[in-house]
């Protein structure tokens, strides 16, 4: 009997479902992609149905379900926090309570009820690994390493906000933990809020804004000093204490005491969508520098505690590719691997892995050569007949290519002319990055492409950088990359010669995706054709979505997004759609998405 484990994350943000069979990832998807609600936290009914169907199993075949955290332990943290701060914030807690008594405490019952509809047995085993164990498992088990130091960092799970562990064979041992309310994830989110971005989704904007700050400027230096002396007490081992006098998240439904922050930094909290001043950029730079310092200290401590020469990372903060790159630059470990779905969606994967390896003691499947993520290509895929059927209601005009080489030659030429391409191929990616299956592609060497894509196409802030997809074997021609980076988990510095303004940030760095022929074969073919056409081995790869919209999932989502964003071309499988030939009444449609 194969071991079939369903992993689930839900009820906070970015719900997801993952299916493992005998320790192999068969399918994984986030609920937002199906419901079209960004970071949807609802119970992932659609994602569960998809992963079961993809594996050809039903609820009755499941060996176990693993939920990514322990609800009762989280409830304990909530109660003890109330006890420690009451009467302050008492009303906030009371307002949050109905949600707990309605669903968050009854997750086991909800899972049982929902899976019963899909044929599950009444006595189906339901496991609840701890939140940070789920992150640790998502970092270690699919990594290429058979032993490693494990560091997990996020906002908060049950109690833990940061953990250091050691993994070998099937086992993960947690060696050190930092507990709520002391959290660098929440510290970074507090700055995200103060800088006028949305908590839980705007953190990467702070990271993107930071290089515009001037590290040599007196203001930036004083901000760093204030953060380190007033807001947070950092110890040599990377542990830290937040000064809770400045933070409100432990007792109220807000992040910080705004007036105190305004007094501390001498600037007002930025209102969303207002002008970004140099002071905001300097403040973003300051918190990014502090985060880098803490993460390096944590990595050094992990190295000392475990003696391992390899590091794996997960938790929302591990999506900070600038901090990840600093760990590499410091040379603390010989190799570093980051779970590409490092946030809570990846918790579903980790929970399933923890159940398979720790509970069921499944045999290790590591090959040692590459990770087990399959290039994150774990979501729904649509063959030629399915694309044709789903596009039929639009009466869309398209050309079908029997020869994919001919298609790539044509599209490569269009990219070189400055045209913008919607690129929809194979299985949808799991996690926050589009890696060439649900992507928008464009020329990286055009001077105004960053602005065109940001402002006209994606309707988002003009400062935000784009990532390049580059042929893996040619990476050294453009960047000082010392290793493949197939999931955009690290930034690397450009070499002197290149002039690709759309993908090079103001500090000369780029969040590159190295494209491997065997992992992302269709994107690789297109890059090869582009190289033949232009002599360059890279172009822009950004996610196929508008601001606030989840990345497209189905051919219908892709076609609607193509029409609304007025992309020049849409390529779905072997079909090519020319925007100028589409029926007028197909768009642009009024699709409303809440800005992120």
């Amino acid at each position, binding site marked *: 009997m194969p071991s079939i484990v369903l992993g689930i994350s839900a009820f906070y943000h970015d719900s997801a479902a993952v299916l493992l069979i005998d320790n192999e990832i068969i399918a994984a998807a986030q609920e937002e992609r199906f419901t079209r609600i960004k970071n949807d936290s609802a119970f992932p009914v659609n994602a569960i149905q998809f992963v079961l169907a993809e594996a050809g199993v039903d609820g009755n075949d499941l060996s176990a379900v693993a939920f990514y955290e322990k609800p009762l332990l989280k409830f304990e943290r909530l*109660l003890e926090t109330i006890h420690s701060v009451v009467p302050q914030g008492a009303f906030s807690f009371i307002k949050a309570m109905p949600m707990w008594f309605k669903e968050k405490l009854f997750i086991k019952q909800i899972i049982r009820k929902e899976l019963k509809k899909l044929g599950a047995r009444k006595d189906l085993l339901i496991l609840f690994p701890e939140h940070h164990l789920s992150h640790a498992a998502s970092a270690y088990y699919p990594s290429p390493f058979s032993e490693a130091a494990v560091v997990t960092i996020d906002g908060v799970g049950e109690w833990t906000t940061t953990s250091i562990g050691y993994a070998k064979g099937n086992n993960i041992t947690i060696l050190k933990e930092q507990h709520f309310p002391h959290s660098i994830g929440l510290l970074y989110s507090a700055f995200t809020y103060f800088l006028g971005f949305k908590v839980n989704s705007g953190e990467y904007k702070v990271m993107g804004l930071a290089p515009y700050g001037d590290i040599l400027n007196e203001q930036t230096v004083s901000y760093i000093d204030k953060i380190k002396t007033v807001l947070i007490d950092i110890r040599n081992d990377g542990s830290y204490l937040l000064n809770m006098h400045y933070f409100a998240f432990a007792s109220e439904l807000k992040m910080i005491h705004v007036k105190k922050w305004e007094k501390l930094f001498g600037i007002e909290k930025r209102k969303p969508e207002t002008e970004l001043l140099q002071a905001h950029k300097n403040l973003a730079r300051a918190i990014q520098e502090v985060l880098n310092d803490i993460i390096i200290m944590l990595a050094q401590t992990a190295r000392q505690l475990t003696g391992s020469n390899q590091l794996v990372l997960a938790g929302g903060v591990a999506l900070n590719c600038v901090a990840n790159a600093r760990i590499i630059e410091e040379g603390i470990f010989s190799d570093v691997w980051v779970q590409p779905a490092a946030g809570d969606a990846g918790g579903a994967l980790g929970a399933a892995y923890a159940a398979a390896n720790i509970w069921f003691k499944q045999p290790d499947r590591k090959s040692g050569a590459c990770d087990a993520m399959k290039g994150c290509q774990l979501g729904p895929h649509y063959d030629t007949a399915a694309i044709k059927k789903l596009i039929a209601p639009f009466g869309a005009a398209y050309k079908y290519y029997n020869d994919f080489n001919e298609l790539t030659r044509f599209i490569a030429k269009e990219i070189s002319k400055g045209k913008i391409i919607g690129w929809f191929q194979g299985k949808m990616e799991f996690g926050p990055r589009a890696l060439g299956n649900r992507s928008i592609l464009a020329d990286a060497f055009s001077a105004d492409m960053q602005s065109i894509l940001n402002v006209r196409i994606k309707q988002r802030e003009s400062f935000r950088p784009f990532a390049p997809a580059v042929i893996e074997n040619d990476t050294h021609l453009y960047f000082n990359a010392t290793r493949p980076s197939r999931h955009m988990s690290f930034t690397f510095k450009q070499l002197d010669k290149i002039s690709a303004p759309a993908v090079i940030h103001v500090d000369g760095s780029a969040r590159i995706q190295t494209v491997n022929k065997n992992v992302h074969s269709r994107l690789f073919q297109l890059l090869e054709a582009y190289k033949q056409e232009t002599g360059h081995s890279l172009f822009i790869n950004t996610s196929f979505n508008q601001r606030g919209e989840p990345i497209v999932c189905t051919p219908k989502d892709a076609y609607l997004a193509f029409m609304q964003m007025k992309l020049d071309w849409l390529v779905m499988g072997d079909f090519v759609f020319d925007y100028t030939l589409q029926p007028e009444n197909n768009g642009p449609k009024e699709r409303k998405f809440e800005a992120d």
Partner: protein
Amino acid sequence: MEFIKELLQFLKARKKMWLMPLIVILLLLSALVVLSSSSALGPFIYSLF
């Protein structure tokens, strides 16, 4: 019933039975919130709760 049993086992194992009165008070207060039809989660900013 299964939930109450699990909750009691959890509190006992964690030596946190002293939280029980707080749970009862919060349960009653949240029932009041629901009955008075006020919004369950007002200015929701971060899902720490």
